[in-house]
């Protein structure tokens, strides 16, 4: 009996916690919208230019080498795997198209978002969590500086701008990686490969990828900020929150990708 009770108690408590967390996330999003969109227009408070450009450099240009490495490798692997199958049908010439379409629609956005979740999301959570633990967030509030305006807005805007840009660059680099392997490694004619790549690609592919990456950027950003602000209890709490932030980001990226792909498939055929 007590076992049953404690079981239901556990479910109740977890549900309660879950909704409390959703409510806190909603609060952050609301005040983000206020400080990012309403306040600058109302003249209440402008954007933190300095902090914003620092975050943009950290999220964008500093992440570029890793993104380039990862997407180039993925493009190369994709080409090899595709060629392995296509060769059996004598359709090696379609390799370029396959790589370019799967890069822009799927792999580019997802892989870039996952790398950014690990690199930038984790650092946002750890930084904000440490600030929370060391009373720095309270200090901001006490100085009459809204923490969401000062800390959250520049970070989320930076990630929302940098991630789609990085995704586009990643797409190009991935295709280039495929091109190098396809022409040098598999001996496909260079101009035929390029032609194949771009003939298969339509505008919708690129737009799909772009929409996905914008959604992913907001997911990564808000999860990282929310986890950072929820930190309780010292260094251990910061570590746990950082892990949770990365894991949760990656899971939601993949689930959201699934949903978005379905939406694009059925609603915008």
């Amino acid at each position, binding site marked *: 009996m007590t076992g049953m009770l404690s079981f239901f108690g556990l479910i109740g408590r977890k549900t309660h916690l879950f909704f409390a967390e959703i409510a806190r996330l909603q609060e952050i999003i609301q005040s983000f919208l206020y400080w990012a969109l309403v306040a600058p227009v109302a003249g209440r408070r402008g954007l933190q230019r300095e902090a914003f450009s620092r975050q943009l450099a950290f999220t964008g240009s500093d992440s570029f080498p890793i993104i380039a490495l990862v997407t180039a490798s993925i493009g190369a692997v994709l080409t090899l795997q595709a060629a392995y199958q296509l060769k059996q049908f004598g359709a090696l010439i379609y390799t370029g198209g396959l790589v370019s379409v799967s890069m822009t629609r799927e792999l580019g956005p997802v892989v870039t978002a996952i790398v950014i979740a690990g690199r930038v999301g984790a650092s946002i959570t750890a930084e904000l969590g440490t600030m929370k633990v*060391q*009373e720095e967030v309270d200090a901001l509030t006490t*100085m009459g*500086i809204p923490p969401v305006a000062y800390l959250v807005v520049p970070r989320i805007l930076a990630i929302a701008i940098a991630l789609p840009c990085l995704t586009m660059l990643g797409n190009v680099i991935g295709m280039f990686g495929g091109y190098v392997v396809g022409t040098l490694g598999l001996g496909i004619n260079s101009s035929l490969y390029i032609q194949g790549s771009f003939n298969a690609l339509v505008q919708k592919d690129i737009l799909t990828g772009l929409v996905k990456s914008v959604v992913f950027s907001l997911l990564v950003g808000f999860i990282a900020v929310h986890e950072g602000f929820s930190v309780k209890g010292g260094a251990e709490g910061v570590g746990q929150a950082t892990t949770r932030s990365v894991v949760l980001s990656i899971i939601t990226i993949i689930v959201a990708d699934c949903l978005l792909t379905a939406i694009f498939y059925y609603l915008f055929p």
Partner: protein
Amino acid sequence: MTSPVIRIANVHKMLGGRPILNGIDLEIYEGETMVIMGGSGCGKSTLLRTLIGLLTPEKGSVLIFDQDMASASEHEKNEIRKKFGMLFQGAALFNSLSVGENVALPLKEHTRLDPDIIKIIVKVKLELVGLTGFENFMPYQISGGMKKRVALARAIALDPKIIFYDEPGAGLDPITASMIDHLIMDLSKKLGITSVVVTHEMKSAFRIADRVAVLHKGKVVAFGTSSEIENSENPYVRQFINGEIDGPVSFRETKENYLKEILGDDFDER
């Protein structure tokens, strides 16, 4: 002493289902140094967080310059907050900013002053706390006592009328702690600043206080000038000052108390 700048009336606050503040009444006058004293868990930190608007009380009012912090909107709270400074227990300097930038932050945020003028103000504020020429150091390069002094310089950046101090001597050696105490006294005398200090350190409390309020279980149990409190007959105050084990607060808890505390804590966790 003229009119009260802070008026706390009948403040109640619950945290995690447990009452922490049970009807606090306190008036703090312009220019005085008020020390709020009490053992761990007596509610003094909660009271301080309520005063600066980090917590909202369930009942009662917190008037700062006749504006109620308890019922103010977030925007109004931010306006009130510009009129006071706060020194946090761990200094709470921003680690990504240099010492100078830390002190300059409230000025940059709340004024439209020229960067050159801000630089001069920062220099003056740092000089007031005895840290001339430390602008370009990073917080991790300076000692704990220096960090507190930088935090103090930051707290007085906007020339506030009130400064709140949370355990100013915590984690410092006796000499540095007494130096901080002298700074607090200096500031309140030189600049006429009202100081509200939360501490459990007797020596420091009696050194700086004009008046003392002793908190116990969320209530003000004793209140008066520092000599009145030092010679108080109140058994709790006596026990607290002398640091005795036996007295109204028992070190050896009864089983019921113990269970209550454990269950209470458990409840808190949820």
